């Protein structure tokens, strides 16, 4: 069968969206984590295995009602075998590495219309006694497929999209190359979001080492050991988020005149840095490129023991570059007005404003006003969108 069997067959897609643990191997469908009761009234887990009849690279109507099982013979709640399933109980090797213990026969009058009906019928018969003993027992784990050939980007399937039936909407984010410049605070939270999307590549740029104070404005919780190793921020975050997204690249360098050109081949660049000079370099160099820049920044100050401030996200697209005038390019030199207060929740908020705007530009979220400059003012709880497309 082709490399994308599940998504091309509506019956298999429906099974996956309902949370069954599927694997298609050669011409067999394997359904794992099927709870059943054995002869000793214990709840166990088995696997259903069925040959798949195919038409091209899609499933066809099942040509047999017989199904195979890996496990002990399933029983009723009282430990007596479910005789209605009885067919053959001898080990068979269906394929290299695929050995089954039983085959079952439960034939509906018209046969099974598709594999959704076949699998759910057998699961209902086999698992009902288990669910009666243990209410949490279910074959619908939403755990995703172990070696999903579908996904070039994620380590395991995005069933969050499939179960909510927004896979087509999520697919709008596929194929994009993303750069995140600066992983010290807001940039790390941008990565936390972007790594959960099916973008093609995520490039991290930052020449700094992860330090204690960074941990207090980063997603997750760095350990003392993590910090003692003094990793580059880009390496540290790549290691964590590579658990989900396969295509994160670490560039433990600052953006300067020598490498800024690498950003012009990106689709989107999140600019999450503190310094005016590299910011100006990036904006100047990419002004004539096709890249979209989303620049973030916050200013937080204390007044009589309470913090005030503004978080900003500004988006410069090929069609609207003038908003760069709202982006601060001056050097963040030390003076009494220049505080570097950043708080993790504000970094998160700032990142989320940028990510939501990015997704609007990709058509993921509806965007009726087309704002290119977004600010959130803390002390009055105010979200403002400016530079709207007319």
């Amino acid at each position, binding site marked *: 069968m082709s490399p994308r069997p599940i998504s091309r067959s509506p019956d298999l897609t429906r099974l996956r969206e309902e949370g069954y643990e599927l694997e298609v191997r050669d011409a067999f469908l394997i359904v794992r984590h099927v709870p059943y009761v054995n002869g000793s009234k214990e709840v166990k887990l088995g696997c259903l295995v069925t040959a798949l009849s195919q038409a091209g690279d899609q499933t066809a109507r099942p040509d047999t009602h017989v199904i195979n099982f890996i496990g002990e013979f399933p029983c009723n709640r009282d430990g007596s075998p479910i005789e209605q399933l009885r067919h053959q109980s001898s080990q068979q090797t269906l394929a290299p590495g695929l050995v089954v213990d039983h085959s079952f026969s439960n034939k509906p009058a018209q046969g099974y219309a598709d594999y959704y009906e076949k699998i759910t019928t057998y699961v209902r018969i086999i698992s009902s006694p288990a669910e009666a003993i243990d209410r949490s027992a279910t074959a619908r784990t939403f755990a995703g497929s172990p070696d999903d050939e579908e996904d070039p980007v994620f380590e395991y399937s995005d069933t969050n999209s499939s179960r909510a039936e927004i896979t087509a909407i999520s697919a709008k984010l596929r194929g994009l190359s993303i750069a995140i410049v600066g992983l010290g605070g807001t940039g790390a939270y941008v990565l936390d979001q972007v790594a959960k999307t099916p973008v093609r590549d995520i490039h991290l740029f930052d020449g700094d080492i992860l330090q204690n104070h960074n941990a207090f404005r980063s997603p997750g919780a760095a350990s003392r050991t993590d910090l003692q190793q003094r990793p580059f921020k880009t390496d540290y975050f790549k290691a964590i988020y590579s658990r989900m997204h396969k295509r994160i690249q670490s560039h433990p360098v600052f953006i300067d005149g020598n490498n800024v050109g690498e950003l012009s081949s990106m689709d989107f660049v999140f600019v999450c840095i503190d310094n005016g000079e590299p910011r100006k370099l990036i904006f100047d160099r990419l002004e004539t490129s096709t890249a979209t820049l989303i620049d973030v*920044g916050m200013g937080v100050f204390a007044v009589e023991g309470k913090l005030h*401030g503004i978080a900003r996200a500004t988006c410069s697209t090929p069609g609207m570059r003038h908003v760069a005038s709202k982006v601060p390019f001056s050097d963040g030199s030390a003076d009494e007005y220049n505080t570097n207060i950043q708080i993790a929740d504000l970094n998160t908020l700032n990142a989320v404003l940028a990510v939501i705007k990015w997704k609007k530009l990709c058509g993921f979220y509806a965007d009726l006003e087309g704002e290119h400059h977004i*600010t959130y003012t803390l002390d009055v709880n105010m979200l403002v969108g400016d530079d709207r497309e007319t």
Partner: protein
Amino acid sequence: MANSNEHIAQDHGTPIVVNGRPKKWAGETITFEQVVNLAFPHAPPNPNTVYTVTYKKGGDQGSLVAGGSIAVKPGTIFNVTATDKS
């Protein structure tokens, strides 16, 4: 450092708030530059700094840019800061 200079801008006029502190403004309108000066009454910190300025008075809310101005209403709350930290 608190001293009476912080409130010299005007001592009569419409009461407003700038960066968490009460001020008074005598004019009917106020410009972006005037709001920045109210926020930083000592010498301007850096003439090249790009500030983000927002205002809110009930349903009347938004941001100001260089060269812009708005009508001043009692109780309008302004925030002024360079938003350059990430």
